[in-house]
């Protein structure tokens, strides 16, 4: 009898566990192959275009041409479209800081860049101070240019950005321990994750921290406590006026992640699909609406962020955006996570 009872329990438990595991694996595949890898491919492509544009302009004795400015904006936006990925190759060799050292309260970028300009470049830019290897340094060269004399340094930074983008991509897909395998085949010794649930948690953590960074760093710091206490130069990328574009690209990245890269009209994928599989249709619809509204609000802010934060009318829209991004973040943490069986530990996530 005891054997039979055990067998009955097993029969009852197994299908449920099987469904859960399958759903998690499908979710990991959707997120990685549908969003993360395409985002990194776009980043690789755009940084290559940027590097070529800088080469071409410098060959003509110029630097801050329209083609370079456009390619620079596209590449930075492509980077923003990956910033919700906070695990894996982007963390190796300090790449996330080398690609974008920001916030930079002590203005290390300008100081280190002055040294680099004076030296006419670095023997190896990858060994130069972290603060001069990325977009904020290149932004100064292009948008506060000292002319074609900046070409040697700009070419190094642009080429190094492309190299890092390419290395991140290959780190995900190639080599002995591709990070993609660590996530999609957890528990096989390929990486630090033991279950698909852990892989999903690692990926979802990034989406939440990207929204947190939009709130805390990208919006609230320049907003300050009132229009007379706004801090426009605390805005990311204020020199190039790309601040809002980057926030929009962040939001697009997180929304695309949520949908597993599925475009409008395509079959549901990603977190959206996982919620629907779990019977959480209402929550899935709510999330889709929340992403749409938030992105619409971000699209309606006029002008550069550094100007918007001192304009009372525009501030009202930005504050609306703060509210919506906060709500989006709270929904993911408090509703989506639990619905997917992701439990955020009280102490595990404490950070102290």
């Amino acid at each position, binding site marked *: 009898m005891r054997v039979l009872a055990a067998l009955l329990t097993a029969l009852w438990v197994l299908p449920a566990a099987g469904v859960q595991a399958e759903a998690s694996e499908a979710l990991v595949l959707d997120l990685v192959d549908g969003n993360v890898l395409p985002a990194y491919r776009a980043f690789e492509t755009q940084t290559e275009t940027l590097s070529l544009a800088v080469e071409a302009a410098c060959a003509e004795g110029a630097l801050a041409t329209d083609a370079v400015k456009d390619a620079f904006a596209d590449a930075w936006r492509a980077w923003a479209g990956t910033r919700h990925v906070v695990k894996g190759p982007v963390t190796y060799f300090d790449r996330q800081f080398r690609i974008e050292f920001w916030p930079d309260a002590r203005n290390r970028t300008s100081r280190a860049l002055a040294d680099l300009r004076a030296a006419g470049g670095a023997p190896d830019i990858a060994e130069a101070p972290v603060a001069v290897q990325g977009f904020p340094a290149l932004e100064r060269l292009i948008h506060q240019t000292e002319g074609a004399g900046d070409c040697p340094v700009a070419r190094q930074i642009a080429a190094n950005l492309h190299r890092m983008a390419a290395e991140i991509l290959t780190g995900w897909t190639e080599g002995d321990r591709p990070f993609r395998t660590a996530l999609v085949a957890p528990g096989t010794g390929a990486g630090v994750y033991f279950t698909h649930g852990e892989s999903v948690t690692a990926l979802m953590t990034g989406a939440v921290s990207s929204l947190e960074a939009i709130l805390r760093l990208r919006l609230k710091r320049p907003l300050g406590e009132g229009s007379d206490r706004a801090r426009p130069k605390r805005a990311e990328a204020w020199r190039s006026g790309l601040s809002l574009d980057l926030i929009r690209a962040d939001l697009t990245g997180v929304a695309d992640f949520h949908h597993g890269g599925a475009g409008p009209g395509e079959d549901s994928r990603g977190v959206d699909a996982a919620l629907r599989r779990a019977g959480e249709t209402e929550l899935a619809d709510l999330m889709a609406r929340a992403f749409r509204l938030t992105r619409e609000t971000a699209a309606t802010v006029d002008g550069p962020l550094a100007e918007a934060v001192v304009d009372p009318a525009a501030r009202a829209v930005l504050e609306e955006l703060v509210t919506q991004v906060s709500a989006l973040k709270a929904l993911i943490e408090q509703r989506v996570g639990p619905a997917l069986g992701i439990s955020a530990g009280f102490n*595990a996530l404490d950070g102290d």
Partner: protein
Amino acid sequence: MTGSRLSRRAVLAALASLPAVPPLASASAGRPAVVTTAKLRGGGFGIVGLDADGAVVFVEPLPDRGHGIVRRPGGDDVAVIARRPGRFAYVVGAESGVVRAELDLPDTRHFYGHAAYSGDGHLLYTTENAFVTGTGVLGVWDATSGYARLGEIDSAGVGPHEVRRAESDGTLWVANGGILTHPDSGRMKLNLATMEPVLARVVPGGAEAERVLVLPPELHKLSMRHVAVHRRAVAVAMQYEGPESDVVPLIGLTDRIGAPPRLLDLPEALALRSRQYTGDVAFDASGAVIGAGLPRGGFFAFWAAEDGRFLGSVEAPDGCAISGGAGIGRFVISTGTGGRVGHVAASPAGIEVAWTRVPEVAAFDNHLAA
């Protein structure tokens, strides 16, 4: 014969022959043996006193989440500090939980979460962020006159988190995590690329902290956050801010200034699970055993202080808080989510634990005072 007179080797040998099941000291039932902070099942946060059986003796509400907790020597005050970047700190009676004093923090400071008393119990030191300049300080408070603020001293590093006093000589040890934060940005880490963790000390009555240990450049992302002291032995517990897949040492142990710290290893499977993150560290009463809470890995780990060898681990989902308990090899631990308290007996023969569920508590915080 007392533990302190024995060599660590002898203590460890003696431990192996002790009864494995931790005693529940029912003699002290009804009196708080453990004071800690927690998220309460009924909602909100509080200071909780538990007797040796894990029964709740008192619950005192807190305005927000608490963090560090420290007993005043020679009295029954317990200081409770807000979780960073909080600004409240209370002193309560260890028996009653009743609030006796509230620390009045200057506007330009916030607490980092921990505090330590001077050996005579006259002064309380709190780790703080002077966030305008981004420098770390120790606030100094007069415990003999209602906890008036006397001043502050530089902590000799960015982001001082835990401060602990050596019982033997009164030296204060300060773990400067090296991570810059600002209240405008909540708990966001603003300087990971350039962070520099520093272990510093303040000699009794000293007016400044001196840097004792700075990690080599390749380990500059190992944030030293917690510290435990037994006589001359100092253990630092670290959190790695680099890639999750790097395997790095998480506990450093030193008993001689200037000597390189011994780095304590975990078996590989546990090292991978740890996510390179420790949340608390403690010595047992004899100094022979070091225990640490690894909430991201969901376990506690124990080592022999003598040679750094790994003794074993205890599974504890979301477990973090650990403190030396009554007796050699004994520890008290708790879990976050799930609200459990455990009594541990650690020895080379293995790690035994007896868990008690505390129904009033939704989740215990990162630290406890046993």
